[in-house]
């Protein structure tokens, strides 16, 4: 069972998508008040993992459990997970015609009984033109605009636990700093999981632990600054080696038990 001290606890999670095993026996824990990073090469399963945490239906949980703040959320509908306090900034959100960004932002703010005009303040905080509040969700948004719109929605939601999927991809240098600052301010004292491919955002956001995903498995977990600098130096080969060693160790253990 998830401990009350952990905001997120994933136990032995295996997930298949369209009949293919994408995540294998994942164990991952984020204690309350910590910000973790999820690293990994393209196609390693980072996005699938956070989609499973969110409950998107294309991900089929074959085994294992996900605990959020002590509650088993493994089979819970997406919106109920949101009600419990999980928020997500998507990497590639769909465009929805006729549904205004402002409508979503205000629905969060009204739910929290916040003052009128707060949507405009939040938009300014992520350097987002307020006209965008009247625009159709993600329709014709540039890559950088999508990132800011996603962060804006998470800021409006004020979740206990924020999942940010590649908040830095496609963002120019100036806005990276703005977004990084907004995320950092927001995450102060909260918990979160940041998915990043290149790690740029980590220059602006303070994080505690990094987990590296390779081929659907957690290859290593450790202090984020150390893990990141090692990857920047040696690439993901370093983690692949780690994973191989882990597997060899597992095999040995099995043999010993026999």
């Amino acid at each position, binding site marked *: 069972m998830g401990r009350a001290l952990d905001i997120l606890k994933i136990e032995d999670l295996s997930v298949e998508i369209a009949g293919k095993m994408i995540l294998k026996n994942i164990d991952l824990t984020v204690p309350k008040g910590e910000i973790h990073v999820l690293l990994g090469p393209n196609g390693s399963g980072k996005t699938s993992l956070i989609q499973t945490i969110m409950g998107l*239906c294309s991900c089929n949980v074959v085994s294992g459990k996900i605990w959020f703040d002590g509650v088993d959320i493994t089979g819970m509908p997406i919106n109920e997970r949101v009600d419990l306090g999980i928020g997500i900034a998507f990497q590639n959100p769909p465009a929805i015609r*006729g549904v205004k960004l402002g409508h979503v932002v205000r629905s969060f703010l009204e739910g929290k009984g916040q003052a009128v005009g707060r949507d405009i303040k939040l938009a300014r905080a992520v350097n987002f033109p307020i006209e965008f509040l009247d625009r159709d969700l993600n329709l014709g948004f540039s890559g950088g605009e999508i990132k800011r719109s996603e962060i804006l929605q998470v800021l409006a939601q004020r979740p206990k636990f924020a999942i940010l999927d590649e908040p830095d991809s496609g963002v120019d240098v100036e806005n990276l700093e703005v977004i990084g600052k907004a995320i950092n301010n927001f995450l102060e004292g909260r918990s979160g999981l940041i998915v990043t491919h290149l790690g740029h955002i980590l220059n602006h956001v303070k994080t505690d632990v990094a987990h590296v995903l390779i081929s659907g498995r957690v290859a290593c977990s450790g202090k984020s600054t150390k893990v990141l600098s090692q990857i920047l130096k040696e690439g993901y080969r370093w983690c692949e080696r780690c994973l191989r060693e882990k597997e060899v160790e597992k095999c040995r253990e099995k043999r010993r038990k026999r």
Partner: protein
Amino acid sequence: MQGKKEKALNAKEKPAALGPDLDINSFTRDVKPWRYGPIHSLSSDITQQSLKVGIRPDEKGRAGTYFQIDHSTVFRATQKMFEGKAEVMSTEEAFEKYDWMDDYWWKVVDVDADKYTALAEMEWDKGYFIRALEGQNITLPLQACLFISKDNLNQNVHNIIIAEPNSEMQIITGCTIHPNVQRGLHVGISEFFVKEGAKLTFTMIHNWAQNFDVRPRTGAMIEDGATFANNYVCLKPVKSLQMYPVAYCKGVNSRVRFNSILYGAENSNLDVGSKVILQAAGSRGEVTTRAIASDNSQIYARGLLIGEHEDSKAHLECRGLLLSNSSSIHAIPELIAKVKGAELSHEAAVGKIAEDQIQYLMARGFSESEAVALIVRGFMDVSIFGLPSQLQEEIKKMVDITTARVL
């Protein structure tokens, strides 16, 4: 007129090219006349129904009003500040007043197109005449209501709408029935003349019943530098509705826009299209359709663009959303370029609501049914009509009420 009567007689058995064929004799023509008087003196079951199609019984915010029940004109007026600028009357009165009415009668719709046009000529039940005088800007919308109060009645109206040179006007038309009416046939002939430099925005809202048949026949002539916007909204069930209005962009730099929002409910059969014929230099056309099919409804969304001039351009866009497995949408876009240089294009997309859109909104805290409702409401985005904000707000409310009820 004799020639037209003869033509009509010859076409009285001629089925329409599209839509289910109807037995005209199964409807009644027998109805008592209504007395003329102010709209607010009408019973509330009538005024409440008319409100649902955008007709304000208090006439507030409207430049003029025409109200017809069954075969009788019950009210028509122009607000004082628009007297001498706009005219509203029945087409019957217009024939008495003007000797030039024949110049506009059956000019952009053929009297012998099919048995419904023939019926409208042989059994004509008035209709409205709305005209903006030369150079006048009618700053408030004019409203016209065509109402049927008796079950199984056949109503055949013939409307003439003229925007004189350099005038500007907005018209909102609501066609509806008494809540007790189940069955009936409404035939509406509408002929539009948008003259040099004029701007006409026409918005028609239909509200029928599950066993009601509707056959509008519409044509528009658009002259030099003139703009015609034709908006159509149908949100309630209907047995069969078939129409294929046509706009002739005859003038240099003439422009036409057809926008339709269709909601097919219950067993509705909607066959709705728009034709644009580009005949002059700089003529432009745009057809936008949003169709939603639910329950057992069948929707045909047609569009035809014909480029007859080398400096002409038009685009057709149709989006369809299926909400049930027993409904269907058939999008039929057609482009005919008759000269090189005519630029015609279309895009059509039909399908169910994308799962990733629902999940995205659920990740924003909405329940699944709230997410679907938001997407459907957003899909029927009335801002495509390009209406002034107050009118847009009124129509948006109607759409919102429909989506709130059906979802």
